């Protein structure tokens, strides 16, 4: 479903010169699997996910998403992906329903399909009572639900979550975590990034330890713990990165 091949991304920085934000990153993730990118801030997680979702073009290397090359047909790749991040914003002056419909239209969905999917998902996430309120009036938990519906409305086979729980309270985080599990159970291919080790332990089938733009180690959580002889992911991470 997702296959990253030798992805590289360089940025030019005035002070530091050329920065290798992503440095020969390769991995793959199957349908029905949750793959975690684990690393500190600035490790290259967000850049990697932005390349996968075609917001950024790789300097070299490529990725195949559900059979389509991100460097060849970015439009097709975008329609295969649902994207959600912790600081995803909403249009305050639109209602939840309008916001979701806007993206449904952009994803080329028919009017009736948008309505049916919206009703289904609003029911599922218990959002009926604020579906027609303006987004600026919603609580952060409600906003997060609107974002979830937006990301999954077009029923994409691949879900990309970029630090989805950062900055959220316990309840909202819980909603997201449950949603990720549901995506996996529905057979979607899920990739998500986090710097919270406990979250990775709970959710991920496999994780990649990423630091300074490179993948240091990859495997199931158990195999990483075994190979480092540690009993929690945090210690394993430190050992692998070697700092």
């Amino acid at each position, binding site marked *: 479903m997702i296959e990253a091949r030798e992805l590289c991304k360089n940025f030019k920085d005035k002070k530091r010169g050329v920065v290798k934000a992503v440095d020969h990153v390769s991995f793959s993730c199957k349908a029905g699997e949750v793959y975690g990118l684990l690393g500190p801030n600035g490790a290259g997680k967000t850049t990697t996910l*932005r390349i996968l*979702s*075609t*917001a*950024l*073009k790789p300097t070299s290397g490529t990725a195949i998403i559900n059979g389509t090359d991100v460097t060849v047909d970015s*439009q*097709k790749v*975008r*329609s295969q*992906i649902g*994207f959600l*991040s912790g*600081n*995803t*914003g*909403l*249009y*305050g*002056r*639109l209602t939840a329903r*309008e916001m979701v419909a*806007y*993206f449904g*239209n*952009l*994803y*080329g969905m028919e009017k009736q399909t948008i309505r049916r999917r919206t009703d289904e998902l609003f029911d599922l996430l218990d959002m009926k009572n604020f579906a027609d309120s303006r987004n600026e009036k919603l609580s952060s938990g409600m906003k997060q639900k609107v974002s979830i519906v*937006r990301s999954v409305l077009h029923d994409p086979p691949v879900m*990309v979550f970029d630090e989805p729980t950062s900055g959220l309270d316990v309840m909202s985080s819980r909603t997201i975590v449950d949603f990720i599990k549901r995506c996996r159970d529905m057979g979607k291919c899920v990739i998500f990034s986090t710097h919270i080790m406990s979250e990775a332990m709970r959710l991920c089938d496999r994780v990649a330890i990423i630091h300074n733009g490179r993948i240091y180690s990859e495997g199931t959580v158990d195999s990483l713990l075994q190979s480092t002889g540690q009993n929690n992911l945090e210690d394993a991470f430190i050992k692998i990165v070697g700092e």
Partner: protein
Amino acid sequence: MQFRNIGTIFRKELKDTIRDRRTMLFAFLMPIISMPLLMMVIFKVQMAAFQKIEGARSEIVIQNVSQLPQELRDSLMTDTTFQVKTEADFAGKILMDELKQKAFQALVIVPDNFAKAIEMESPTDIEIYYDRAEEMSAVAYSKLRDVMSQYRDRIIKSRVVKRQISEDVLKPFEVQGNSVASAKKLAGKTLGGIIPYFLILTCFLGAMSPAIDLGAGEKERGTIETLMVAPATRGEFVLGKYFVIVLTSVMAGLMSLASMTAFFKYMAGDPAMKQMAELLAIQFDVQTVFLILAVVIPIAGIFAAILLSLSIFAKSAKEAQGYVGFLNIFLVLPAFVSMVPGVELNYQMALIPVVNVSLIIKNAIAGTIEWNYVITAFVSLFALAALALYFAKRWFEREEVLFRM
């Protein structure tokens, strides 16, 4: 490039913009209400100041008043707009200093034997001192001059009559000036300078607020990333947003034009403005409105493309506002040319954006349209608008612009 996507984006952004109170305030309410209000205040203040100066009594001092001929003395003394004093009223003071210190407004120095000289028909001078930098003093001087020249005319007449020559000898011919300008042209040349400036300014204001919201606003709300991974091209986003900005810009311009016209009509009905009523009666026929629209649309297009490009570059609405405020000077100031007397449309002027729009609107209102320049300006404006839009699109495709956060 799909029209369906552009339409979707356009409709969403338009709805979003209409619901934005700040944009509505800046783009529509302010130009409609504030411009006429501002002009009204200026008009009223000026009228009031004018009336105050005209109606006020001028205090003058006549030195050596006994030497004035009786007739001239009487006409000065009986004139209620003068309050006449003599040097005796300022005993022990230096009159010239008193004048400088505004103790009175003008000083008339009558030479010795002035009355006699006139009687003897020998040339003589009379001196008036005043402060040209003081309006009241200048008014006193001009009133004094009027009284004196009238008196002089009477003397000339009496001297001619005394010699038994017909008065007609003094008037070989009269010059009669007749203006052939229509009221429309007259109004256009006077008020025609103000209207283009306000119109271009409101077009800019109308584009400014939505441009900031639709560009930098996406970054501020954290929605830009979601947009970039949605399956519409960057070009489609640019166009959808661009057309909303052009629309609000043109609408703002037209609404301010309507409000200015209504305001001038109202002012023309004011009895205090009687003499100016003819100048204020601006008539917009279909051709004028079409011509104005034809230049306003491309200039709105240029504003929209530049503002959107700057806005998407900015990290926040605040930063965008900073750029826009700076830009305001360069984009709107050239519109002032329509108020500069003597600046006429020519091929060079017709090529300069903003300047050409300003001058064409001015001419359109006056009804003096020169098509060769209008067409030159059209070509220049549309080419520039297309260029600006092309650059905006290329700009939107740059990662370092979109993800500059």
